[in-house]
């Protein structure tokens, strides 16, 4: 198996792109990544996307984006794994390069959500849950996370306000990210009085609906230097699954697929949790951030929120998270999120994260979660010297 490097990154700002459709967004990110890598040709293109069929009545994104990008004849396929679609596409691209089936692969995560009404997007996102046994009961994605959050508070004795540091950190980091959607700081008071969406989850626990696209270019690590001064090596790529329905889990507060995927990633990279310099986790909701920290091995059970309260998740903390705003404040264009996480991790590892730079960041971890933890994809990235 060959080592794989990331030699190019590109991203559009996350937000409400009224003037751009799926194909324009995808092309913008792809062109930026190609420019960044300086590659002339691509062997394959993988598109991570969740909602195009529902929101835009458009599937077949592999061929669509390849065609729009002028890459006639190229191998191109869409990869779907709900909110983990972006990282799932990266996983496929990684496997192609690592296995020697392709040398230069582009992976684009793209999502267009603002063309649908709020009710339609809520219903569309709920398709990541079990349609027959969750969604049919009026379960929304926010509701599923709210069920977890309330039970978590009940089991470990936290208050709703105790989750504030996750959102405060994300918003603070988004201020200096030109591609972030919500570039303003929030206060603990604002968090405490935010509008309820699904009790106990408020607007300030949840990531926003938005559009965006991000892209990376992969190639064999031994060729990376020819294209990129500061390439980043993919040290681990690991996928794990769990039951789609939350109610089918033995212990809903333990994200088994997070634990499995993180464990496999650590094994593959030959590193331990304490070796990781920062963690781009899947903070679609504050409760997901807490549960991810625990199942990934960064905090003991029931201590994910305590870890945030202690300040360990801030830029100067033991394990900075959401360093460019996370899903909460950069925005969560669902199928693109996994690639945004990787693009941001590459910026940190290249030392290009601006005011948000984590000093001496060498090893970064990204984790993209589909559904309430049914598909979890962890990547460990390392700056190549």
């Amino acid at each position, binding site marked *: 198996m060959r080592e794989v490097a990331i030699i190019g990154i590109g991203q559009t700002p996350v937000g409400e792109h009224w003037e751009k459709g799926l194909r324009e967004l995808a092309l913008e990110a792809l062109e930026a990544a190609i420019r960044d890598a300086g590659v002339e040709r691509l062997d394959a293109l993988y598109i991570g996307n969740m909602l195009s069929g529902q929101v835009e009545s458009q599937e077949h994104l592999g061929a669509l984006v390849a065609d729009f990008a002028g890459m006639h004849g190229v191998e191109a396929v869409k990869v779907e794994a709900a909110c983990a679609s972006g990282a799932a596409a990266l996983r496929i691209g990684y496997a192609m390069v690592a296995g020697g089936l392709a040398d230069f692969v582009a992976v684009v995560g793209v999502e267009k959500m603002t063309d649908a009404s709020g009710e339609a997007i809520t219903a569309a996102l709920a398709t990541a849950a079990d349609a027959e*046994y969750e969604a049919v009961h009026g379960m*929304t994605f926010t509701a599923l996370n709210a069920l977890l959050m309330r039970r978590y508070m*009940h089991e470990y004795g936290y208050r709703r306000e105790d989750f504030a540091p996750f959102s405060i950190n994300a918003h603070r980091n988004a201020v200096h990210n030109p591609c972030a959607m919500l570039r303003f700081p929030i206060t603990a008071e604002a968090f405490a009085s935010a509008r309820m969406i699904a009790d106990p989850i408020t607007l300030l626990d949840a990531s926003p609906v938005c559009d965006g696209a991000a892209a990376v270019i992969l190639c064999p690590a031994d060729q990376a230097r020819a294209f990129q001064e500061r390439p980043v090596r993919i040290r681990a790529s690991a996928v794990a699954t769990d039951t789609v329905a939350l*109610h089918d889990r033995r212990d*809903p507060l333990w994200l088994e697929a997070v634990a499995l995927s993180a464990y496999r990633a650590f094994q593959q990279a030959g590193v331990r949790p304490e070796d990781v310099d920062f963690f781009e986790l899947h903070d679609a909701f504050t409760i997901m951030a807490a549960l991810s920290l625990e199942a990934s091995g960064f905090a003991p059970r029931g201590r994910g929120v305590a870890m945030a309260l202690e300040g360990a998740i801030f830029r100067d903390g033991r394990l900075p998270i959401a360093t460019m705003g996370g899903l909460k404040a950069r925005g969560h264009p669902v199928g693109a999120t996994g690639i945004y996480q990787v693009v941001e991790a590459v910026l940190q590892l290249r030392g290009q994260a601006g005011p948000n730079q984590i000093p001496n960041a060498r090893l970064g971890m990204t984790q993209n979660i589909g559904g309430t933890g049914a598909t979890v994809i962890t990547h460990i990235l390392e700056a190549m010297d």
Partner: protein
Amino acid sequence: MHPARAWRGRSQRYRLEGEICEGCGARLFPPRDICPECQRPARTPYPLSGRGEVYSYTVVYEPPAGYEEQAPYIVALIRLEEGPLVSAMLTDVGPEEVYIGMPVEMVTRVLHRQGEHGVIAYGYKFRPVLRRTVMLPSPSAPVTA
């Protein structure tokens, strides 16, 4: 939605029919055909009692398309007395009355209506166990210790 979709699951939806694993005796809901406990086939229908308690709950203020009529509504995870956890709406109860551990019972209600013309989807919901008034035995009733 095509009517066949709800029709297919009518036993589960209308009366909470699950499965029992012949191998290890685990009671399963929703039916999943392969027992998650022992990985053996579990295809024997088994009617769940419908009694359980609230494991967690939330109030949905921003409903998905098709559920606006009932919003805000409560959804919950219910721990059934036979073991399985089930996702369902709570009904006949206000948000301020619900608590984790609240005893509930299954009722069959309208899950959603597809506008004025579509098929009506009926299915299980849970409500607080109906309180029964204590009735004094009537004078002619046999006296019991």
